[in-house]
């Protein structure tokens, strides 16, 4: 099953919620729509499900247009934010609902319900009411209910947002395993970048109703197209500069008083162009005495915090404040406020991004 969106847009009066989304989701893909609240991700999902009528654009399912079809005709499984389990039905009745709607015979229905509950390891709770279950269990019931009628497409609206961190991590793993096992197309909506990266084959990053970048999680993290993407997916330092030198395979970017050697993305920028460099905190090294690097910068520690696996350190430099992440195990120095250190990073560490920060 492939799903295609062509210029899908939605506006409410003068407010544009989604601005012409184009997307192609292949069979068996786990796609996540990731963005801050108000970015239009839920509206897109709601249009795919058929609950929201698009202002313009089309939705195709295996090449057949479904834009005007009501949700009950589209037959997608959906897991709602807050689960939307029927409170007056038991777990088994909830899961049986989509089968009952289809007029399936009782014996066959019971068998399917049992299978679906086994899939999410909830067979023991078949006769309980939803309110007698924990949040994580309710979430799994919602999942079983969405999958029991074997829909080709499963839509997930912030399915894990109501759970605490540890349970969320657990269910993320279950969800990923489930996706591999049944091989259906999943479309997930979330504002949690960790969830998006750990679950998805493909992530679409949205902001202000537009899809900013679409790609595999690694590609988005390593080659963010814009400042927003680099900033939303993980953390980053941004260095605005001007290209002053173009040599074989590398640029000389003047940032303040420093000439930075930048190799990655060198083809994108001609001599004299203004560029924005995005430099991930973990790609900045703390240099030891006499150690060399492509780019070297003197810094002073302003503040730091210990996070168990590592330190997050804010330093002051000639280029302004920078954030760096340092592994705590065999750390090259013990952070202390005011400590003078030397930072270094290679010419491949930073990426050149488009400056789309309008705020």
């Amino acid at each position, binding site marked *: 099953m492939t799903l295609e969106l062509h210029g899908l847009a939605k506006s409410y009066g003068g407010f544009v919620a989604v601005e012409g989304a184009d997307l192609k989701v292949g069979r068996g893909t786990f796609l996540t729509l990731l963005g801050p609240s108000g970015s239009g991700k839920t509206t897109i999902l709601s249009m795919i499900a058929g609950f929201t009528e698009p202002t313009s654009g089309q939705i195709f399912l295996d090449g057949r247009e479904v834009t005007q079809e009501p*949700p009950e005709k589209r037959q997608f499984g*959906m897991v709602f934010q*807050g689960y*939307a389990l029927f*409170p007056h039905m038991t777990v088994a009745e909830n899961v049986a609902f989509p089968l009952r*709607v289809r007029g399936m015979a009782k014996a066959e229905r019971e068998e399917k319900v049992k299978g679906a509950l086994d899939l999410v390891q909830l067979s023991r709770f078949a006769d309980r009411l939803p309110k007698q279950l924990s949040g994580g269990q309710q979430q799994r019931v919602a999942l079983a209910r969405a999958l029991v*009628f074997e829909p080709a497409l499963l839509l997930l609206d912030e399915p894990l947002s109501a759970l605490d961190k540890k349970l969320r991590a657990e269910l993320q793993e279950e969800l990923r395993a489930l996706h591999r096992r049944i091989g259906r197309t999943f479309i997930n909506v979330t504002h949690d970048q960790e969830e998006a990266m750990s679950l998805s084959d493909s992530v679409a990053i949205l902001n202000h109703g537009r899809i900013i970048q679409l790609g595999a999680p690694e590609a988005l993290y390593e080659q963010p197209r814009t400042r927003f993407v680099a900033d939303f997916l993980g953390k980053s330092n941004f260095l605005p500069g001007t290209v002053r030198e173009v040599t074989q395979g590398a640029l000389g970017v003047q940032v303040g008083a420093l000439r930075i050697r930048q190799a990655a993305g060198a083809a994108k920028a001609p001599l004299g162009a203004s560029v924005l460099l995005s430099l991930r905190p973990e790609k900045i090294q703390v240099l030891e005495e006499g150690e060399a690097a492509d780019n070297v910068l003197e810094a002073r520690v302003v503040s730091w915090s210990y996070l168990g696996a590592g330190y997050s350190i804010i330093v002051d430099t000639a280029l302004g404040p920078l954030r760096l992440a340092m592994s705590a195990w065999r750390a090259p120095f013990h952070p202390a406020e005011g400590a003078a250190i030397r930072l270094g990073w290679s010419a491949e560490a930073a990426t050149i991004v488009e400056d789309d920060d309008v705020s």
Partner: protein
Amino acid sequence: MEGAYKPGWFARSTGLIVALYLVLPILIVLPVSLTDQRFLSLPRETLSLQYYRNLFSSPEWFSSILQSFWIALGSTTLAVVAGTLFAIAAWRLDRRLVNLMRALMLLPLIVPSIVYAIGLYRYFRWWDLLDRVLGVIIAHGVTAIPYVVITVSTALAAFDPRLEQAARGMGASLPQLLRWVILPRIMPGIVSGAIFAFIHSWDELVIVLFIASRDVFTLPRRIWDGINENVDPTMAAVAVLLVVFTVLLLLADLTVRKKRDS
């Protein structure tokens, strides 16, 4: 509620006084119904069950009880069907016209019943519904609609709209959605409305006085006539039965609400 101010002696005692004021006139009929005298009064020498016996052996009283019961049942059915359908429609449409309709639906509650009764009298004479059980059922049913509209609307306001989305997403048609999701969710509201509609008809007098004469003699009307013509203590016995019955209905309503809230 934790952390709230505790009520002081003033609040407690006024609360008690108001409660007594509400309950005492009802409680007084109990000793009166057990009187050993021949007129409406408190018992003097001994307690007697003679008027209860009198009530059940008298064909007039008994037929009035039956008639009131059937009328209440019929008008409750009418009010529940019309009120529930209206509440669901108003909830789904929710436009300006509907808000106007909603206000109109509550009219029988606001307009004095005597005004309503005069109007009904005119219409019913044209339609030949005067002094007919069907006429009283229609009159009581229509005036009970507001109770059902209010309780069902309240239940619908608490209905999570995502349940409807979930049901549609799973392929449910509108009738399936209504039967399997919406109706079970608002059933406590419907039952509550039905109980109020029943009580409304059960003790309604003003309208009946206008539109019934000889053939329809409901219980409240029998009491009314009794108190006008003679001061038979049987009325007190009837009143006690009425109170007991109403309290039972209200208790049923409480249980329904408790079940819904849990």
